[in-house]
C-alpha cells in the first residue's frame, strides 16, 4: 500500500460511521469507492455491515400490535357518532 493510499484509507472507526450513508446511497462516488475498498480488506467491518443489515431486517419483523376487539368496538361507536354529528 502506498503512503498516499494509507493516508486516504478509511479506518474501521470511520467506516462504522459511514454505514448508513452507504446504505442510503448518500456517499459521493469517491467516498463510496474508499468505503468499499476498506470493506474488501476488512472482515470485521464486513461483518459489521452485515449486522447492520440484519438489524434493519429485524426491526421490520417486529410484530405489529393487534387492536383489541374492545378498542375496535369503541372506535366504531365513535365513528357512528361522528357520522351523525
Amino acid at each position, binding site marked *: 500500500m502506498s503512503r498516499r493510499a494509507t493516508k486516504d484509507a478509511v*479506518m474501521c472507526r470511520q467506516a462504522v460511521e459511514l454505514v448508513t450513508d452507504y446504505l442510503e446511497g448518500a456517499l459521493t462516488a469517491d467516498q463510496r469507492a474508499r468505503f468499499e475498498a476498506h470493506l474488501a480488506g476488512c472482515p470485521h467491518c464486513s461483518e459489521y455491515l452485515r449486522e447492520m443489515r440484519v438489524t434493519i431486517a429485524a426491526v421490520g*419483523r417486529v410484530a405489529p400490535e393487534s387492536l383489541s376487539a374492545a378498542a375496535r368496538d369503541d372506535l366504531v361507536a365513535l365513528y357512528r357518532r361522528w357520522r351523525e354529528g
Partner: protein
Amino acid sequence: MADDSELVARLQAGDEQAFVILVDLYHAPLLRLASTFVPSRAVAEEVVQDTWLGVVRGIERFEGRSSLKTWLFRIVVNRARTAGVRERRETPSDRADLSTFAEPAVAPERFNSAGGWSSPPTPWADDAEERIVARQTAQKVARHLALLPDRQRQVVVMRDFEGLPAVEVCALLGISEANQRVLLHRGRSRLRTMLERELGRG
C-alpha cells in the same frame, strides 16, 4: 397504493366497514408513532382518537396526492406534536439527538489508536436470520426500539418498521435529509449494539 383509491372511495361514501379496515391497519402504527411525541400512553390514545375524528371529517378532501398512509401519519404527527407541546414535553433529547459528536456508532474503546478494531464485532449476522424470526428475539427488538431516544425512534420506526421513504419521513418530521440520516444511523447503531449483546457469542 393501488388499494388506496378503492378504500378512499368507500370511506368517502361513509362505508363503516372501510373505516374498520383502516382502523385495523393503522391504529397500532399510529399509536406507536404518537407515543414517541407525548409523555404517556393515555395521551397517545387521545391523540390517535382525535386523529380518527380528523380522518372521518377530512376524508372528503383527501385527493390522493400522497398515499393514505402518509396522510394518516401526517395528521397524527401534527396532532401529537401539538399535544406534546401542551403536555410540556419539549424534548431536550431533540437537541441531544442531533449534537454532532454526541454518539459514536461503536464505543471508542473498541478501536485502537490507529482507528482499527481492537475488539471487533462478534460474528452473529450469518445465523441471525432464523433467530430474528423467533418470537423471543422480535420481542427483544421491540423492547430495545422502545428504549431509543424519541427522535431516533421516530425515524427508525417510520423507515425500518413502516417502510416509509426517507423523503416522506423528512417531510413528516420537518427535518433535513442529512439530519434524518444522522438519527437513522444513531438509532440503528444502538439497536445493532443491543442485538450484539443479545445474540453475539463470546
